[in-house]
């Protein structure tokens, strides 16, 4: 612009020059998110813990190979030779051994792999399923919506743990179920969790889509001749990312607990594969004589779930500060 208006003092001129020299860039949603998240100490610690745990889980075979024993190897020499009862923490077995002489430290680490694997895979599939159904129901309305919504209502009416137990029990014996497609163990647990969980995210997404589709930018996209498919993936889905992330970070710890519960009840991960839930189940009756077998997997489970929960809280707060109080 040509010169300042007559009468403005020098300071204002400096300000204008300053403003002209720098571009004011609008910050994206993600930059805002990260800035808010960075301020949340608790969430950062939780993120650090989760990150560390994922690293440990990925490198468990290396760690265990270096300083501990293979998780499924039995060491009867570590049992009391008189009664066969397990011995506690020592320099060779950091967390002691279990009644079969297996290294509890190694099994806790490998259990982390199982818990994280199951939680992440199962959550991923349940989110994908829920989002797909939710988007279909919310966008297309009509018969599709009615059918899907009523089906979700029916599924939600089932008592969760009983339904999980039922599916898991049916598929845990012998050759599995669904004509052998669902084998006992990891597959059964993942399938059970997916079947239980997709309805929650499905409902949430449907609600979000219902409100989004009425917004102006959708109308304008439709007016400009965009196909439904394009609208769904280009316009609606990006706006769903926030609730999906929030839901995922809250669902993962729940699913870790669900896997532990199923393994505790004997219909989840089968021995000799290590699973925190199954270890806790075996440790409960001998707690008074073998506290280590209960405490270490138990602590691992509690800390993991707590970390994910705190992380999820932090993510939700950072994404949507209005709900932070």
């Amino acid at each position: 612009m040509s010169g300042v208006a007559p009468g403005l003092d020098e300071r204002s001129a400096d300000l204008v020059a300053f403003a002209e020299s720098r571009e004011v860039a609008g910050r994206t949603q993600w930059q805002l998110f990260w800035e808010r998240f960075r301020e949340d100490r608790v969430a950062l610690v939780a993120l650090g813990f989760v990150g560390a745990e994922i690293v440990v889980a990925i490198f468990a075979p290396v760690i265990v190979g270096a300083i501990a024993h293979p998780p499924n190897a039995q060491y009867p020499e570590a049992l009391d030779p008189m009664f066969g009862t397990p011995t506690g923490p020592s320099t060779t077995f950091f967390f002691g051994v279990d009644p079969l002489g297996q290294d509890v430290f190694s099994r806790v680490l490998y259990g982390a792999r199982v818990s994280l694997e199951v939680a992440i895979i199962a959550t991923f599939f349940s989110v994908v399923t829920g989002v797909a159904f939710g988007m279909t129901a919310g966008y297309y309305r009509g018969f599709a919506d009615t059918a899907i919504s009523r089906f979700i209502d029916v599924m939600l009416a089932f008592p969760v743990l009983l339904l999980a137990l039922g599916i898991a029990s049916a598929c845990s014996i012998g050759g599995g179920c669904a004509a052998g497609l669902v084998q006992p163990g990891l597959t059964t647990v993942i399938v059970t969790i997916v079947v239980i969980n997709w309805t929650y995210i499905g409902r949430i997404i449907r609600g979000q889509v219902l409100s989004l589709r009425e917004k102006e930018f959708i109308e304008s996209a439709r007016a400009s001749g965009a196909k439904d498919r394009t609208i769904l993936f280009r316009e609606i889905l990006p706006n769903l990312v926030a609730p999906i992330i929030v839901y995922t970070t809250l669902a993962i710890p729940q699913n870790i607990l669900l896997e532990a519960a199923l393994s505790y009840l004997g219909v989840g991960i089968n021995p000799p594969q290590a699973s925190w839930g199954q270890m806790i189940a075996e440790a409960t009756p001998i707690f008074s004589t073998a506290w280590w077998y209960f405490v270490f997997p138990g602590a691992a489970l509690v800390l993991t779930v707590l970390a994910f929960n705190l992380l999820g809280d932090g993510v939700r707060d950072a994404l949507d500060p209005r709900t932070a109080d």
Partner: protein
Amino acid sequence: MKLILAAFVVVSVAVLAAGCGASSSSSTGTSAVTSASGVSTAPPPTPTSCSTKGGTLTILSAGDVDHIDPGQAYYSFTYEITRPTQRTILGVKPGTTELIPDLAASMPTVSKDGLTVTVHLRQGIRFSPPVNREVTSADVKYAIERGFSASVANGYAAAYFGVLQGAPTTPPATPQPISGIETPDAHTLVFHLTHPDGIFTGALSLPMTAPVPESYAKPFDDETVSSYGLHQVATGPYMIKASSSGNINGVGYQPNKLIELVRNPNWDPSSDYRLGCVDQVLFKEGYQDPTVMTKTILSGSADANGDTPPPPAELKSILSSSTEKQQLFFTPTGGSRYVALNTSKAPFNNLDVRKAVAYVLDKNAMRLTRGGPVDGTIATHFIDPSFGNEGFNQAGGLTFDPFPSASSSGDVAKAKEMMQAAGYANGMYSGPAIQQVADNTPPGSNTAQVIAADLAKIGFDVKTVSVTHATMYTKFCNVPRNEPNICPNVGWLPDFHEPQTVLDPTFNGENIVPVNNSNWPLLNDQSINSAMDKAQTILDPTQRFEAWGKIDDQVTQTAAAIPWLWENFPTVFSSRVVPAVMVDNEGAPDIAMMSVK
């Protein structure tokens, strides 16, 4: 019969001696021997009278009986119910393994040629309601005949009673008369045998000889699978609680939940060696957790363990308490626990592969899953030490071990050698995964895991199917068609004090039956079969025990089954009862002799 049960009795050799001039040798079989761990295996003193009359006993178990029908029962836990409810021709003197008359008025007499056995029954023994009438010899005859039918399918009928003249060689669909059982009058039975049989008298103590009223039972026995068990009548001090029409299903017998015994109103105490002190016995089933079971008993809320031993941690804690120690008893079972390999299909149809398994198993670790040395001696063959001089030494004693390893922990190198001899390069198995069906509760589940880990050392991928102990037998291991490659949690106790009862039902190829089969390895070795058939006819006890000792050697060397424990079974009682154990039944609680203090 199947472990958890030891029924060995002193054969009243005196009778046979009178019949065939053989030298008599009797042993009591109660071995108050201190086991290697220093823990006594002496049984509690046998009660001679009731401390109090009345009260309720509670026995806890993980699983159910194998069959509620006494004509089908072949499992030590089931005998805890048949012994107090069903009187057999011969019984067992409490606290011993000695045979005494039960339904019989006196011990049976055997003819000089050994082909005729005569039994005189007591008079005045009556059935429980709704039958109520007096027991006659026809009822005992029918009981034995029905065992051979396909609808009852008793697992030892052919093994012990196949010697009867006219005994069917293939099972008839429904009970048919056997000409070799004669009933000249209502209280006399005459058995005609096809050849002299040294052990027939001992078989008269088995529950298949408990009387069954034919007119009442026939409608049930005519069904494809007999349902008489659900309507059974009793002759002992107790009966399974029944409706007025005799139905026990849902009344005194709730499968997998509860068995309730009440007093048999028609029992005459003066005719019986049993005391029958308490009024009611509850068998509470479904206690899957042995620690909970043991703690419940120690707290006094229950009185004894029916089928599951206290786990190692509990044994340790009980033995370190001066009061609780008094309530724990170890009974030599007379039998062995073993791992049965299915020889009818690959890979265990190969002798070298089986030998490899015999070498690789860490028997010491397997024993630790049950509690270590207090639980018994590592087994090296099938006839166990409590047989004493008769049979155990003939079988090679403690020293005979065809597959030795340092401290019985297994010899992986030797195992790999065997695998190489079988044709597997590097000594590692390279075929498809194999299957074992195991208990789903400890200690059996832990033992199965040790076995799977040991087999992994020679390359086997073992898939474990976990089911209840009873299901493991009735649906899998006892049915040759459904049998997996390995039955890891099986064992066998003598049915009575004869080595034949340890080796014949379990390893004679002629005793393989399509259901209720006890020859789990499906071993059918002609030379072993004929050696056994020959040994069965030996009347002289010493020669007989020697012959069976050699057979034990032969069977062990086939590695069709790998014995690993000669067990001292622990039984724990609450402090409110006077304990009594069936010394001939693995130390199982003898409820007909127990009373509340």
